[in-house]
């Protein structure tokens, strides 16, 4: 068995914990939505808190100056955040009906299918990677998992 370099253990743990956090976020936001009586308000609060946290992190890391570059950016690149907002809202809205696992399986299916097409097009300056049987199999596995999560 190959030994994993010890220096990689901490980053792997951090990312694993981040994945756990993302899993907890959906039901937490759903509970917040129930408490506030509005899923949209819950998503807004969630994004506001995340925004403040990232802003503080950016400033602490000395990356405040690049923030000012926002003025010169094409508007199209700025609306990415709206897609993220839809993701967070749709997760908190659906989790009470379909459960967390099915919600994540569906999210990943959409993500992988769209990435397949975007990568083939080389959208937004990413390197072109063609649609291969391996990547189609990857999407099929996730789709199979989605169906199984409902059985």
């Amino acid at each position, binding site marked *: 068995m190959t030994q994993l370099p010890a220096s990689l253990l901490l980053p792997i743990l951090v990312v694993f*914990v981040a994945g756990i956090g993302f899993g907890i976020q959906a039901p937490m936001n759903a509970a917040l939505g129930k408490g*506030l009586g509005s899923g949209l308000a819950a998503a807004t609060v969630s994004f506001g808190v995340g925004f403040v946290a*990232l802003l503080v992190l950016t400033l602490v890391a000395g990356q405040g100056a690049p923030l000012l570059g926002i003025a010169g950016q094409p508007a199209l*690149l700025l609306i990415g955040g709206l897609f*993220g907002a839809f993701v*967070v809202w749709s997760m908190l809205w659906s989790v009470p009906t379909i459960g967390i*696992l099915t919600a994540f399986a569906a999210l990943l299916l959409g993500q992988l299918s769209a990435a397949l097409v975007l990568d083939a097009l080389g959208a937004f300056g990413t390197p072109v990677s063609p649609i291969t049987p391996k990547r189609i199999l990857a999407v099929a596995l996730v789709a199979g*998992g989605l169906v199984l*999560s409902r059985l």
Partner: protein
Amino acid sequence: MPTSLMPLFPVFVIVLAGGMAALQAPMNAALGRSLNSATAAATISFGVGFLGLLVLSLVLGDGRSFARTTQVDGWLLLGGLLGAFYVWAILWSIPVLGIVTAVSAMILGQLLVALTLDAMGPFGLPVHEVSGTRILAVVLVAGGVILSRM
């Protein structure tokens, strides 16, 4: 209609959201390259999402719900921190670990907690017990996601 097929609409909405997430990733990456800071790009992305949701909440008449933030359990307000941590962890780990390892660790954390929380039914959510089929579902989804990055 069998109960397992009933929630097709929410599943469809989430698949659509996944497509948007896929669209967002290269957009944020391009913004990060242009600003020369991935963290600044993530911050702007969250700021835009926040403003979009705020405007939509007010327009749809949900503005009064914000007053109830003082009445709910305070820690429920911190879900956004988990989202920010997730975004930061992706940005920080991919150059260190490479995309396959980073995505594998993340997807395992995500799916294992989804399986566990579903079995517990936290915050009054319905309980979905751990079963052989659900474990197989996790294996297939994780396998597919990792395969797509290899």
